């Protein structure tokens, strides 16, 4: 089945966005073409929630300079995910700071269909949502597509690939959560690996993103299973040498090495632990 994969595929889609005073709050007028997601390849996507919010522009520019092609904005509304993270104004600031980076918004919100317009206007290049958060997920995916944005679906630990199979043809991204967002608790790494394998088998051209405590210890296994987007946490922002952190995360990406068998323990790195992120703007985001 051949479908246009990216919002900007085959002929180029130019989207002009005008933010009205009644739309995305403290507004920046964004008038630019959307950044296309590009082909499936290893991508490190730092989570904006873990950035130093007081110097957001500088933090995000440094990530982009270090080779991060996507910026992950985990929007939590305090209801679907029990902690409020941030909203469209911060996304607009990220877009303004990094005009050529993919702004990858994940809506941990109920009724995501009501948020599509504001985040499209804020400059999102991709908007993912949870199927449990809405009554008609296919319609939401279409609404995102109609806004000129790449749609994505998010699979929480309790969400089966089979339950979202029909949606996979309608989206450009599938996000596999390794943890229950906002609730803490265990990391469901093995289950996530199985889901990633199943998704990759169903859709070779889908961006498969993994999120929730992804670090250089578990990244190789996830990449081998077929994930290509790694949502990275505080380690990137805390590191002086961000390029090294990025390289370490994706060094075992299958397509780069040409073989699937890699020793997962042939390198050591800082242990990812909850305490490292306590200081963050949005723990659990």
């Amino acid at each position: 089945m051949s479908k246009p994969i990216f919002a900007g595929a085959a002929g180029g889609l130019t989207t002009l966005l005008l933010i009205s005073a009644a739309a995305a709050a403290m507004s920046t007028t964004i008038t630019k073409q959307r950044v296309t997601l590009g082909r499936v390849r290893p991508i490190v996507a730092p989570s904006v929630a873990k950035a130093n919010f007081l110097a957001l522009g500088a933090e995000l520019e440094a990530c982009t300079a270090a080779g991060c092609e996507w910026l992950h904005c985990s929007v939590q509304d305090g209801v679907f995910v029990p902690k409020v993270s941030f909203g469209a104004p911060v996304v607009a600031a990220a877009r303004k700071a990094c005009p050529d980076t993919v702004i990858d918004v994940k809506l941990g919100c109920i009724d995501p269909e009501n948020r599509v317009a504001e985040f499209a206007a804020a400059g999102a290049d991709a908007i993912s949502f949870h199927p449990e958060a809405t009554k008609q997920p296919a319609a939401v995916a279409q609404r995102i597509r109609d806004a000129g944005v790449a749609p994505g679906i998010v699979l929480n630990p309790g969400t089966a690939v089979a339950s979202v199979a029909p949606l996979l043809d309608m989206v450009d991204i599938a996000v596999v959560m390794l943890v229950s967002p906002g609730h803490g608790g265990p990391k469901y790494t093995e289950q996530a690996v199985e889901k990633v394998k199943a998704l990759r088998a169903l859709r070779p051209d889908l961006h498969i993103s993994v999120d929730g405590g992804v670090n250089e210890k578990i990244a190789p296994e996830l990449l081998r299973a077929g994930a290509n987007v790694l949502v990275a946490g505080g380690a990137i922002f805390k590191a002086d040498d961000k390029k090294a952190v990025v390289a370490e995360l994706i060094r075992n990406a299958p397509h780069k090495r040409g073989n699937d068998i890699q020793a997962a323990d042939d390198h050591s790195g800082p242990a990812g632990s909850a305490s490292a992120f306590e200081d963050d703007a949005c723990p659990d985001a």
Partner: protein
Amino acid sequence: MAALSAKPLESKIAPSLLACDLSDMAGEAARVMDAGADALHIDVMDGHFVPNLSWGPPVIKKLRQRSDAFFDVHLMVSDPLAYVGPMADAGADGFTFHVEAATDPCDVVDAVRAASRPMVVGVALRPDTPVEALDALWRDGAFLPDLVLVMTVPPGFGGQAFMADQMPKVEALRRRFPTMDIQVDGGLNLATVEVAARAGANCIVAGSAVFKSDRPAEVISALRDGVETLALHKPARKRGGMVSSWRPRAESFEHPP
């Protein structure tokens, strides 16, 4: 907290952080405080009480590490009780919640008074909410909050037009509470502050007017002059280089975008 309301009324100018350049929040906060602001007005919107989602307690906690300013937090959230502990932890100095959001507003005030950090208690009214809604906040002949915030736009977005039809509420509150802080928020700029100050507002929240200006110090000073001459009835101050009697001038208006 009772001691606060016994002090004579002062002008309080609090720029709204949501209008700043969010890519440099610490710098912007410092800039307006240096320009003479009395407090930082921080809007917390949960996407439910108002359609917009701004940010949560962790961002305020982060800013607290870098700023000594008075954090005047305005909670446009559906469950203000749930935010009392987190706001105290985050370092808020003022806790203003919406009377429409609280099933029992007195419970919220009690919770704030009992919090781990002393916070000024404010109660806010949406434009369509009459002042009578504040009747729920009396106990034993005393009005419980320290401050009333009269929204002069529908809450949730910046850059909206000032609603002058909210002024009767401000006037009624000022008659009832001669020495209480009465704050207005929404579409305040050098033109509209005159209207608000005449009605009796002494605390002004201004977003775009301050942050989008090249000369925030002048805007803040002019807002303060407006309050002091028209609400507090003080004589106009003479300043080198600025008009000595307060008049709005067309070219100095900051219109919302």
